[in-house]
């Protein structure tokens, strides 16, 4: 005989104000199977939990119903409670009489009490059908993968490595460093970006627990939390990493010039190159598309001049597969294609550039050795116009979101122009100035008050060339009149957008992304670095526009999650998963394509039929991957699949309790 205990929680006055809890407890005494029923002010508090444990002993209860808040909140609490009271934790049902009842019916106590009683009735009917379930465990591979070697990836890798775990960092480019390496100064302190980044790059490269895999891409991801099997394509560098000493003779002698991506194509690099002087690893790669040897079969100068014979034209892409316990995705961002704004003349006028071009222009190792010069004629600009929100906050032509960093880096650029060119004028066209962040507003105030940048609230409607000047036409919406500025150079603050291949990677690993292809966190407030896929975490601008402090903070947060996971030998798996009745399974495989988590495979079993041993295929559920969504159970016609804890019979018992 099953003996159910019912516990009705007042939740202070959250429930008790709208529901007569005593009466619900009284009503529950007459439900089939109920041996004990009571109410209490705070069931989740320690005295409340003790009450449950005591009642289990005194009244020999074997199943428990708690009527309180949403199970999302306290189901784990009460499961632990009844487990320490000696029951299987899955012999618990919760009736949500707060969110589903008292909060939505605050004005009709009689009917709210009736509804609460019915919800408890359903929970009692369900708990009578519950089966004890046991958690199984899956082993955890103590190795982490960080995808992306920008500042977020570097920070995450360092934190994980410092906790004692092995980390592989996969970077698509020949060097780690990412976008931060391209930036000259950082706001709001104006310290040199490279000066604070390169020590981190060196630290991560020299860390005994970190393994840098540069010039490589993720090819395939299989498996699940604790056991991701990741195939990495190591692109052919054409340079033997072990033999190369990084002397640089090869790229001095290489005859093929290619516009440098790192220098925003304002400078040339060679076909054999390192992207920038402080690159790590500081060993070149051959860009085969532009290499004379690979194009014509003739040249090979680099090979001839290399003192260590490190150049190897025969190298091929290499595929390696490694198992990881956790993955941090830190793939960063791209810049908005500003040519969408034809009226700004980007691409048409040489002196209309983006913020990242400007970063290279003021960088001491950039194309102008740090002197601000116009790309068209090398003259020092006197009037510089900055336009903010190019692509951001523009639902029609660009992106609806705010790129978050542009207000600050434009203020930084304005300050730097005024600092370096004493007789210059700086005009900033803006929609709003957003400066939430430590020291950010002070920095902006200095830009306007101390450095005298002129901020004009309004959008620019047109830019055109007149002689060697650029005429910037816009509107000052505060004064309500048109303005025209004769500029020598225009800098566009272009939006941060997701990487063009962001969706592909998300689909490969199996987590979600939003309409802008930024990766979606599991919860915007309470799980900002987790994805919905266990064991996969996010860091940096791949999740949404972010500045350096935010990216670093998120990277450290993701690292903590990884360390938490890798600190265990194995992890328990939720037993609320699908189960296959092999006797009934016809092996049609319909459940395989409907599973969103790729948790179902087919396996071959053998059985004896009429004295003969035959083999047939049946479905099998991977307990590490199954999330218990139940999609397979409705796809299975012969009901060979059933979701434990939510079986057809259990749900029907609830429906019957309510409707019969």
């Amino acid at each position, binding site marked *: 005989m099953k003996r159910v205990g019912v516990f009705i929680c007042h939740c202070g006055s959250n429930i008790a104000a709208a529901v007569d809890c005593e009466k619900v407890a009284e009503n529950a005494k007459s439900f089939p199977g109920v041996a004990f029923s009571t109410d209490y002010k705070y069931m989740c508090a320690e005295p409340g939990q003790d009450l449950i444990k005591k009642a289990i002993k005194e009244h020999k209860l074997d199943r428990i119903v708690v009527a309180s808040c949403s199970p999302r909140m306290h189901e784990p609490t009460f499961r632990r409670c009844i487990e320490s009271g000696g029951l299987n934790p899955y012999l618990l049902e919760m009736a949500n009489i707060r969110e589903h009842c008292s909060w939505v019916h605050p004005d009709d106590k009689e009917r709210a009490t009736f509804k609460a009683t019915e919800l408890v009735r359903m929970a009692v009917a369900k708990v009578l059908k519950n089966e004890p379930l046991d958690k199984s465990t899956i082993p955890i591979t103590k190795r982490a993968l960080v995808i992306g070697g920008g500042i977020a990836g570097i920070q995450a890798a360092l934190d994980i490595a410092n906790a004692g775990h092995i980390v592989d960092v996969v970077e698509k480019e020949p060097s780690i460093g990412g976008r931060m390496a391209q930036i000259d100064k950082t706001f709001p302190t104006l310290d040199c970006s490279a000066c604070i980044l390169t020590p981190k790059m060196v630290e991560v490269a020299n860390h005994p627990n970190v393994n840098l895999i540069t010039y490589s891409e993720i090819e395939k991801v299989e498996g699940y939390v604790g056991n991701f099997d990741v195939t990495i394509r190591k692109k052919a560098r054409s340079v033997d990493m072990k033999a190369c000493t990084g002397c640089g003779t090869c790229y001095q002698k290489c005859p093929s010039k290619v516009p440098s991506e790192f220098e925003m194509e304002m400078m040339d690099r060679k076909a054999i190159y390192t992207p920038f002087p402080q690159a790590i690893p500081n060993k070149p790669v051959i860009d085969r598309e532009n290499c004379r040897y690979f194009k014509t079969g003739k040249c090979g100068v680099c090979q001839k001049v290399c003192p260590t014979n490190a150049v190897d034209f025969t190298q091929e892409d290499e595929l390696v597969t490694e198992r990881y316990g956790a993955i941090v995705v830190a793939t960063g961002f791209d810049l908005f294609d500003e040519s969408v704004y034809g009226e700004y003349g980007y691409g048409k006028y040489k002196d209309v550039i983006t913020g990242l071009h400007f970063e290279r222009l003021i960088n001491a190792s950039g194309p102008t050795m740090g002197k601000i010069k116009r790309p068209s004629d090398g003259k020092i600009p006197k009037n510089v116009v900055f336009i903010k929100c190019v692509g951001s906050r523009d639902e029609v032509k660009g992106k609806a979101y705010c790129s978050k960093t542009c207000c600050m880096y434009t203020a930084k650029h304005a300050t730097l122009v005024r600092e370096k060119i004493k007789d210059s004028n700086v005009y900033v066209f803006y929609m709003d100035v957003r400066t939430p962040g430590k020291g950010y507003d002070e920095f902006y105030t200095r830009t306007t008050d101390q450095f005298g940048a002129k901020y004009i609230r309004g959008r620019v409607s047109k830019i055109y060339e007149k002689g060697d000047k650029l005429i910037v036409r816009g509107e000052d919406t505060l004064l309500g009149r048109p303005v025209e500025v004769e500029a020598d150079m225009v800098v566009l603050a272009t939006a941060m957008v997701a990487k063009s291949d962001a969706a592909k990677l998300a689909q490969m690993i199996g987590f*979600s992304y939003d309409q802008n292809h930024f990766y979606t966190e599991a919860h915007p407030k309470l799980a900002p670095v987790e994805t919905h896929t266990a064991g996969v975490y996010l860091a940096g601008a791949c999740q949404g526009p972010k500045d350096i402090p935010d990216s670093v903070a998120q990277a450290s947060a993701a690292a903590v999650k990884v360390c938490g996971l890798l600190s265990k030998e194995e992890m328990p798996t939720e037993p609320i998963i699908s189960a296959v009745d092999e006797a*009934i*399974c*016809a092996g*049609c*495989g*319909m459940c395989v*394509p409907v599973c969103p988590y790729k948790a179902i495979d087919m396996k071959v079993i053998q059985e004896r*039929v009429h004295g003969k041993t035959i083999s047939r295929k049946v479905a099998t559920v991977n307990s590490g991957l199954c999330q218990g969504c139940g999609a397979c159970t409705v796809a299975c*016609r012969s009901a060979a699949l059933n979701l434990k804890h939510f079986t057809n019979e259990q749900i029907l018992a609830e429906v019957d309790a309510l409707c019969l």
Partner: protein
Amino acid sequence: MSEITKKIQEIAREILEKGEAEIVIGWEKGTFWYLSPPAFIDKPEDTQRLVWDEFCHNNLSKYLLDYKNHEGKVAIFVKGCDSRAFNRLLQDKQVDREKVVLIGIPCTGLKDQDKAKSLGPNGDIPKAQKCMECKYPTPLVYDYLIGGEEALNEVAATKEAPDFSDVKAVEEMTPDERYDFWTKQYDRCLRCYACRNVCPACSCRECIFDQTRIGWIGKANNSSENQFFALTRAMHVAGRCVECGECERACPMDIPIMLLNKKLIKDINELFGKYDAGIDPEGKLPLGHFDKNDPEEFM
């Protein structure tokens, strides 16, 4: 003896003699002139029993399920609809293509056996309903083809466009009228499961209606349980029905089962885009895959 019957017998004999298959499944003349039930031939000399006429209704693909554990090969004759059923069984991983020899028969349409019974052999017997709406009278998959490629052209010319006028008529009823209509139909149901047994989409090892699931699936023959059965059966073949019409032909109580199946086919066409089951054995099922871009309009 018709030309096609002769060819059928020849090819069946050849297959058995050469050992290409151990069993040939075809049709033979039954007790009545308007019935041509299936014949299971395993000796070359028995092939003379095989016939092809306008009453060879049985969808022979279904019988392959009985030979799932058979070690040797089985040869079957397929009309257009039977070949779609074969593709469906391939999709359900119930048959092994390597173990089946398919002999295609381009079909010009069969006759309604119930009307034949009442009109007599000399009456003007109309085509079966399913054949009047057949989109695929030629086999879609075969190893041998009776009559060669010329026969295909002949059949292609006789193809008739399906229309959903009967479904629309039911859709236009008021909910009460419609409920009365279906209640009347399924109150006659005997729960003999002939519709299921003959259906090539019903390939479960153990049908849920044969399982003991007290409170979940009822076995009683009453109005409510019969309706539950009717809806469950229809949903289980949704997106997989090849419109062979066998369920309706096998029903001893003349329940218009195809009307229910066709309603689902029409709905799938409207909601998920045009789809005909059993055409492409590699294709995704409209109700059988997970799609991240599912609009989820019902949510």
